[in-house]
């Protein structure tokens, strides 16, 4: 039963820390990564241009020699340098809230960072050359041969579009991946929350009483959907109608007596959430975890 909850949701990646705790990270989207890359690329190109301009102004061949070496270092080691310094982030990744992590859950080593960034040659600079000047890569060839060769080159550039973890060639050979930087935001507990402008309502808990049978119908998944609904309602993202629909469904499901059918939606849902959570948490303490409504009851 427990293993089921540890399955990663789509779009997330689960690692096991050395302490034996599972953490899930959100896989960065291709769009975010492309934007981060373009930001970094802009920095590289502008810096190179600035150095080159200075070299030309100062005159002399030493300046040009310096520009050559500097542009080589920038194009090949800019990413490695910052990912080493900022543990897995470059300027662009910082702006987009992305970070490189090791896929095995261990620490991100210098070798991994270097390995993933040395591959940029194959993934970006080579396809770029292929676009701009294909004849430098495949000098003498027939049309179709050139086409196949170039197609092959583009497979490497487009790698992140395949596979659910959006790995590029560099991530594949280094054992890394790019995730969203985790955010932390603690909201108040719903069971302690009171509707605004209302004193603590003792009657609420007595107003609706749910039997064990009724509480046995739903599982954790439904409980957390309900929690999500409350929070979205609080932020004004879920309409009152939606709450009403949900309320009707719950009442039907748990066979709420027809005589008491007309209830205040919010108050009803809130007390149902409280009762349901208390019930499920109690069962959890006894080692019984009911994932969702279809889950079988253990004897």
């Amino acid at each position: 039963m427990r293993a089921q909850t540890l399955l990663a949701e789509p779009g997330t990646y689960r690692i096991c820390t050395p302490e034996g705790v599972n953490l899930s990270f959100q896989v960065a989207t291709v769009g975010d990564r492309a934007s981060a890359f373009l930001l970094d690329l802009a920095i590289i190109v502008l810096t190179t241009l600035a150095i080159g301009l200075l070299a030309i102004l100062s005159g002399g061949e030493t300046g040009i020699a310096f520009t050559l070496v500097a542009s080589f270092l920038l194009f090949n080691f800019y990413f490695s340098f910052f990912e080493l310094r900022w543990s897995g982030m470059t300027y662009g990744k910082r702006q987009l809230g992305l970070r490189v992590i090791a896929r095995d859950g261990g620490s991100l080593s210098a070798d991994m960072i270097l390995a993933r960034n040395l591959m940029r040659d194959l993934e970006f600079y080579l396809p770029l050359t292929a676009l701009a000047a294909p004849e430098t890569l495949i000098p003498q060839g027939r049309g179709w041969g050139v086409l196949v060769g170039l197609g092959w080159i583009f497979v490497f550039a487009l790698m992140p579009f395949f596979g659910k973890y959006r790995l590029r060639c560099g991530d594949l050979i280094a054992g890394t991946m790019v995730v969203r930087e985790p955010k932390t935001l603690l909201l108040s507990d719903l069971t302690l929350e009171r509707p605004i402008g209302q004193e603590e309502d003792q009657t609420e808990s007595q107003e609706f009483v749910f039997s064990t049978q009724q509480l046995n119908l739903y599982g954790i998944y439904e409980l957390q959907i309900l929690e999500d609904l409350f929070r979205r309602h609080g932020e004004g993202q879920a309409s009152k109608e939606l709450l009403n629909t949900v309320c009707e469904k719950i009442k039907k499901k748990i066979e709420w007596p027809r005589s008491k059918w007309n209830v205040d939606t919010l108050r009803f849902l809130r007390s149902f959430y409280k009762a349901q959570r208390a019930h499920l948490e109690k069962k959890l303490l006894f080692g019984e975890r009911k994932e969702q409504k279809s889950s079988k009851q253990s004897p």
Partner: protein
Amino acid sequence: MNLSAKDLHQLPVLYRSAVSSLSVARAISLDKNLLDYLEGLVSRAYLLVYSNKRPPKEVIAEFLASRFPITVFFYWKFVAFASGLLTLGFLCGFVLTLNDPERYVSFVPSEVAQGHSPASSTESLKRQLYSENEPADGLTLFASFLFTHNAKIGILCFSLGFAAGLPVVVLLFYNGLILGAMTALYYSRGLGAEFLAWVMGHGVTELAALFFCGAAGLVLGNALMFPGQYTRSTSLALHGRKVVPMVIGAVLMFFVAAVFEGYFRQLVNVVAIRWLVAGGTLFFWVWYFAWVGRKHTSDAGSNLTS
């Protein structure tokens, strides 16, 4: 981002307690918001606690003293294979060009030939091997061009290994072919030994670096094609990061080679000294990789053989 020493001291302790809070919460609470918050907190702390920060000086010293030679020593079979490929190309180029000098033109690209062809006179070929003194300014530009050009090819050689290693084989063989064809041209004019002295002063270092990059590419290709007991992605990830010191080391060697080629070759015109430098560098690299590499491999019990 910057933590004070006191905060840093507390970080692991706080991290541990957050981890255990998360474990407890997962066992008893169903408040999704609380669970998400704790998980986010632990994830952020995890990234900090397990980031790998060491003083650069220490890393560089360790790299030169042991990691680079150990890696080369560990993958010596691939290095041998890469050098074998280039030697094969060299022999083919040499024999073919000797039999028909016109083939020189088809083997050697024009930018490498620098205007020399089988039609050039022996005099002009000889002149290329002995340069008049040039201003030092031009030499620096020449050396930095050589370094960036060669290092780029080296890195490309490594990354092409991802394409199943096939392009690496072609690249190594073709470079051998060029070298063989050039040697054949000079050999046919009785300048063979002088040509090799001219090339090998820096060539020993440069070729070794090229072998390493090629070998690293072959390691990638091998990991992809023949993953053995692992899945392909695990095998790639395992070997990719393991072989990286070899590529970084090779880039440094390209730098050394460019200094030799850019300054030494242009400034020293005595054949005997050129041979001496070639022999000296060869001896140094063999000692460095075979002896230092082997010593550290047996010392450490090798963390590479995992």
